């Protein structure tokens, strides 16, 4: 890797360079800063030089947001099938299961966050681009059901290119399914916090991701209904700088906060402590 040697020469002290084999280094996509992978992992994949939020796996978000030792994965037995007999889908699934693990495109877990019991779902972009098929919809529905039963707040971290094409209209209906279960949480005043990471587009952004009682977004995350490529096509020209980023959505009133990854847990915790059902006012007026 030519880029690596060149970068290393500029940025890294000689002593470290000699001791560490090249495959443990990683380079920031945004600024080119090169660092030891281990150090980036410990920094929750935030570039120490430019604060770029790199992509992070679902289990890492669970570790970031839930209290240590409290994480219990749920809905582990749900597996995608090939209901439409779609060309190449079984092969793609098999590959994803091999490289991204067996939680499909969302990991669901129950645990505590700052000692409050919560249910957490984290989408995993590594599994077929975080696409939402029947399993993702069902896992969200069941996780929300758990929240309904126990009155635990629901938190979902999104990272998705949209619906899973290979399950056709069944995937499309997961948008309705997840929205329907959220309307039940709404009826019972159980809080739901949605966290948008890079990227959150298509059917996921146009359903549960945009329905949070509070919506947080990670810095720089691309969020939108149509992906930038599609819009560029319909426009026939390049998009304005920063279009569809978390910061752009904040300015346009579409999200509540852009939260640095290191502050996510604390911010969600504070929100949840506000969003607990208070007693109805008994009233001053005795007449």
């Amino acid at each position, binding site marked *: 890797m030519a880029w690596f040697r060149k970068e290393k020469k500029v940025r890294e002290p000689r002593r470290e360079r000699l001791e560490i084999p090249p495959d443990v280094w990683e380079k920031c996509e945004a600024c080119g800063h090169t660092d030891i992978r281990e150090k980036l992992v410990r920094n929750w994949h935030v570039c120490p030089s430019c604060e770029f939020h790199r992509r992070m796996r679902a289990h890492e978000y669970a570790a970031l947001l839930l209290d240590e030792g409290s994480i219990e994965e749920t809905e582990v037995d749900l597996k995608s099938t090939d209901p439409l007999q779609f060309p190449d889908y079984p092969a793609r699934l098999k590959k994803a299961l091999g490289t991204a693990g067996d939680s499909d495109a969302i990991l669901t877990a129950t645990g505590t966050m700052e000692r409050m019991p919560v249910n957490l779902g984290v989408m995993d972009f590594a599994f077929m681009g975080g696409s939402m098929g029947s399993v993702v919809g069902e896992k969200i529905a069941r996780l929300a059901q758990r929240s309904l039963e126990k009155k635990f707040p629901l938190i979902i971290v999104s990272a998705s290119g949209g619906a899973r094409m290979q399950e056709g209209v069944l995937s499309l209906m997961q948008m309705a399914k997840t929205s329907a279960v959220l309307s*039940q949480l709404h009826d019972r005043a159980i809080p739901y916090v949605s966290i948008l990471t890079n990227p959150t587009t298509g*059917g996921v952004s146009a359903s549960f991701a945009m329905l949070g009682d509070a919506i947080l977004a990670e810095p720089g995350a691309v969020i939108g*209904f149509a992906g930038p490529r599609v819009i560029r096509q319909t426009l026939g020209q390049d998009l304005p700088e920063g279009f569809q980023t978390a910061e752009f959505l904040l300015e346009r*009133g*579409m999200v509540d906060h852009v939260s640095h990854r290191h502050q996510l847990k604390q911010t969600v915790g504070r929100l949840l402590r506000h969003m607990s059902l208070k007693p109805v006012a008994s009233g001053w007026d005795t007449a």
Partner: protein
Amino acid sequence: MGTSALEFEKPIVELERQIEEMRRSSAEQSINITAELAPLEHRLAELRREVYRNLTPVQKVQVARNSRRPFTLDYVKLCFTDFIELHGDRAFRDDAAIVGGWARLEGETVMIIGHQRGRDTKENIHRNFGMPHPEGYRKALRLMKLAEKFHVPVLTFIDTPGAWAGLGAEERGQSEAIARNLFAMSELQVPIVATVIGEGGSGGALALGVADRILMFEHSVYSVITVEGCAAILWKDGKSPEMREKAASALRITAPDLLELGIIDEILPEPEGGAHADHAAAAATLAKHVGEQLDELRKLKPEKLVRRRREKFMKMGQFEE
């Protein structure tokens, strides 16, 4: 698209022209040719039946998109009385890609909301080819809430290639607008009957589709993505007929497919030669079936109605455990 005949309809159009020609010349010469025409008309009916019985999925896409097909406002004119269109989302502007308003079906007030395409270029530009912006969905939401306030059922008509993908649509929250409708329709306290009358294109269609009953015209389609989009993403070729055909078949987008997948409740039969061959007949079918569904739904208390609607969608999907 366009008003020209579809490729597979050419034999039908040719025969129609022939019959028309004979009629005209016989009228000019005051000759009665009823006897000569009968076998040709018989053949025409047969040909229509034959062609439309064997449509491939990609041909159904063409039929669904055909600009001669009845649109929402055509059905409004043919099935309903006392229609008063309501405009605007009260926040940004009126989106002509979605129309809605009060109307009567068999004398009873209903709220109608539907995508609206255009028949010619000028109207299509005005209607943005039936592809709504966020304000279109927000108008729809406003009308649904209005209907709920007066305990009036909502009838939606789905006919869109999809929600608009553009700068303004994104800036004003296309995702949020669609999501909000899915959410609101999951808790609306009045009956909702949705009918796919043409193309049901992804989230932009579903935003009017979370209903107690979902009906689909025989030759309409409903899909998570356009066949062109699917072919372009998966096989890097959204243009060639072979790849479009492959995508159309793989996606399972026809009315029988959706019935089998447990998504829709009923298929509405189309007249011979498709809904565009006889608007009045298609409208009569629509009015009859929607009316029947409404009669059933009106018997349910709001809590039960909403609970069942939620359960209906909660059951959708296929997986292993």
